[in-house]
């Protein structure tokens, strides 16, 4: 079964989300082979079924690839702002679009933070920030600087009443950091 086909087999993921309050911070832990299918399921549920607007911080896939995948699954990409941290550093052609902000690199955490904060302020609707993924961001950043980013960001989400979804590949994320982040979240789900 490929990652996209997994989409319909994730009813349990949706059950996890259905029990959450209006504003939530969730750490979603997945395995490497399920990462894409799980993230598509969650985004589809939140955007199409629950009416959220998404701010997707992608450290794993470039904007053009992600939008193709989302559209193949019928996710309304007009309701998503992408913060693409990959394309510039990988010399991928930058597609001009109204729903993407390109960052120079995954290690540009101050600029990424400012983009997320600007997006949160500009989008009036019910919204969530999706960090895709903690694991990839930790490849490019020291744990000390990433810790500052995630603490600051989660605090800001709570102050602003914005929901947060943090994706982590279970077997590849440092245990110590994983525990620290889990402590800051309302719920940890296995997807």
């Amino acid at each position: 079964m490929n990652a996209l086909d997994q989409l319909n087999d994730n009813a349990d993921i949706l059950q996890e989300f259905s029990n959450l309050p209006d504003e939530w911070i969730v750490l979603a832990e997945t395995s490497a082979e399920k990462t894409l299918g799980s993230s598509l399921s969650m985004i589809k549920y939140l955007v199409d079924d629950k009416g959220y607007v998404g701010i997707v911080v992608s450290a794993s896939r470039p904007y053009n690839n992600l939008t193709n995948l989302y559209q193949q699954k019928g996710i309304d990409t007009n309701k998503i702002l992408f913060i693409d941290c990959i394309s510039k550093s990988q010399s991928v052609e930058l597609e001009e679009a109204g729903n993407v902000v390109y960052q120079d690199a995954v290690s540009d955490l101050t600029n990424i933070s400012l983009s997320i904060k600007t997006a949160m302020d500009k989008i009036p609707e019910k919204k969530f920030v999706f960090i895709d993924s903690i694991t990839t961001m930790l490849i490019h950043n020291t744990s000390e600087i990433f810790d500052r980013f995630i603490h600051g960001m989660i605090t800001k989400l709570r102050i602003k009443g914005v929901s947060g979804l943090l994706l982590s590949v279970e077997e590849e994320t440092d245990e110590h950091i994983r525990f620290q982040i889990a402590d800051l979240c309302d719920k940890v789900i296995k997807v």
Partner: protein
Amino acid sequence: MKKIMMVDDEPDQRFVLKTVLEQDGKYEFIGANSGEQCFELLQQGHIPDLILLDIMMPEMSGWTVHDRLKKKNSPYNNIPIIFLTGATDDDSKEVGGWFGEDYIEKPYDVEDIKKRIDKVLNKL
């Protein structure tokens, strides 16, 4: 003697702080007029104990300088940074507070800035 590098495109800011910091004989001052010059000086071996980093600079902003210094494979990622800025927007203050050891708004009081430098250096 502790070395303090100030990265600021405004010469008068560098002049004032150099004068203030060197008068006590406690600090050696290294001035850089841009992010690019900051990296040149570092590569030449001028490694400070602390960097005072202006955010609003042409070409390379203080944010970008910070992010490059703090990259995982950067040899300079353990140098503490205090952000200095005339920017008054809340986002800058907030993000500066997240990532910097301190965040100081211009115009600053020279005695206050010395205390804050000492505080950061004493934590090390």
